[in-house]
């Protein structure tokens, strides 16, 4: 039996998770529904005054996306952890870091990327001009993978722990601060007519760091949970 | 000596609330925490005694 290459392992995990997600369509819809719902709460509370809504839109939309992505973290490993699939993945001849990367990528495809696709609709609600909407999508496109990667660390560490849902939020939200600042800052800069280049590059740096350091931490978390 | 009288010292140049607010809360934290640790230590000793009882029984 030839040794399965790392890439095929990652692809395999992603395919499997997407299949699972496709079978129970509810999960991505939950995430999107939550995102739209939270984003529409603010006009109800702040008031419909367009200038004010435009002013708070970058922050509100980014926080709503961040919370939506965070909500589905719990389900990233939970199902596999309960029925023992996670154990078999860990024992597979493929490095756990690769398998974990596959799971994070699958999570991003299911509850990260859809946020990017839906964000223009919400941005229109807030009266954002086209170029700012484009910047919102770009910043979310770079930012949501970081949310999945860093969030997965929290998910792995709280596997099978009581009160896991809220606990993940407490562990992970402080670590989301840089991503939120740079992400929302990029959209804010574009809205103010400034050049968001710096914010985007720093956001990209966060992505690079997360992609490098998160998987080993996630794998360690999973291994600890499986002991 | 900076302070003319005890009253002046307590008034702290009009910032009494803020200065003493910080220092008293700091003093409270530095006093309460050791007490909590002491209580935790006594509780730990209880568990050891209980364990010993069970061991000898």
């Amino acid at each position, binding site marked *: 039996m030839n040794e399965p290459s790392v890439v095929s392992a990652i692809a395999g995990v992603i395919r499997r998770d997407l299949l699972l997600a496709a079978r129970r369509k509810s999960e991505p819809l939950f995430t999107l529904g939550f995102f739209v719902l939270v984003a529409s709460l603010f006009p109800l509370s702040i008031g419909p005054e367009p200038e004010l809504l435009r002013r708070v839109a970058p922050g509100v939309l980014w926080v709503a996306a961040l919370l939506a992505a965070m909500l589905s973290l719990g389900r990233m490993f939970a199902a596999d952890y309960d029925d023992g699939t996670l154990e078999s993945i860990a024992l597979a001849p493929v490095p756990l870091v690769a398998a974990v990367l596959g799971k994070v990528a699958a999570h991003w495809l299911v509850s990260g990327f859809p946020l990017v696709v839906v964000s223009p609709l919400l941005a229109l609600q807030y009266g954002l001009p086209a170029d700012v909407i484009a910047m919102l999508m770009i910043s979310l496109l770079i930012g949501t993978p970081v949310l999945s990667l860093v969030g997965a*660390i929290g998910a792995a560490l709280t596997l099978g722990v009581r009160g896991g849902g809220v606990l993940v939020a*407490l562990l992970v939200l402080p*670590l989301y*601060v840089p991503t939120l600042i740079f992400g929302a800052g990029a959209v804010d800069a574009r809205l103010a007519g400034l050049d968001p280049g710096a914010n985007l590059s720093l956001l990209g740096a966060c992505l690079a760091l997360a992609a490098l350091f998160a998987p080993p931490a996630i794998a360690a978390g999973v291994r600890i949970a499986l002991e | 000596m900076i302070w003319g009288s005890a009253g002046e010292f307590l008034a702290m140049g*009009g910032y009494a609330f803020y200065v003493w607010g910080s220092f008293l809360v*700091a003093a409270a934290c530095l006093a309460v925490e050791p007490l909590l640790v002491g209580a935790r230590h006594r509780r*730990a000793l209880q568990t*050891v005694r209980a*364990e010993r009882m069970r061991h000898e029984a």
Partner: protein
Amino acid sequence: MPSRLINWFRFGSPQSFYPLAGRLVPWFTAIAVLTGAAGLWVGFFVAPTDAQQGEAYRIIFVHVPAAWMSMFLYVIMAFWAGVGLAFNTRLSAMMAHAIAPTGAMFTFLALWSGALWGRPTWGAYWVWDARLTSELVLFFLYLGYMALNAAIDDPRRADRAAAVLALVGVVNVPIIYFSVQWWNTLHQGASVSLTRAPSMAMTMLTGMLLMAIAFWMYGLAVVLARVRAIMLEREAHTDWARELKEVGQ
């Protein structure tokens, strides 16, 4: 074989570290009390009134040492967590758990004194100053560590999971601080930094350093005392714990 081979791990086991920590705690407490008294004396009776802030600046003698300690203890906690994870030594993990509450307390103290200092100086209890904001995030990192540690029943797994979190946190602390600093300079209008490093008269500096040493010694004393309690909790079933004369009465 060098005759005087220092056995670094002699104090690695809870059994041999327990009495040592017990002897050290009183010493650190004594030094803390002495340097604390000296620091307060310099702070209140030697340091002159500040030109701009009048007497309000004296809060610096609590605020800055507490902020230093909160960051310092987080790094030490992450260090022991890392050592515990790498060498699988239970005592290092216990050290990390013992440090967390004291670190969180100092963070709270830094936030509290920062707010009370901000009110008279900048007119608002909460100022979105870069340092205060990062201190707030640090406070949540401590809470996250303690919550994770409390949520997992099996001590061994709690040690390792909390250790990973502490290491991830310590890598993020500078990043968070940089991003908040960056965010703060962008919205500079919103706030002014608290410690504009007023012309630090020598006495002010010595007062602050004395208080910093006092907080450090205090931290050592409390952490060692707490680690002793944790050791008893964890090792209650062992022989050495049962034979302790403290237990005997």
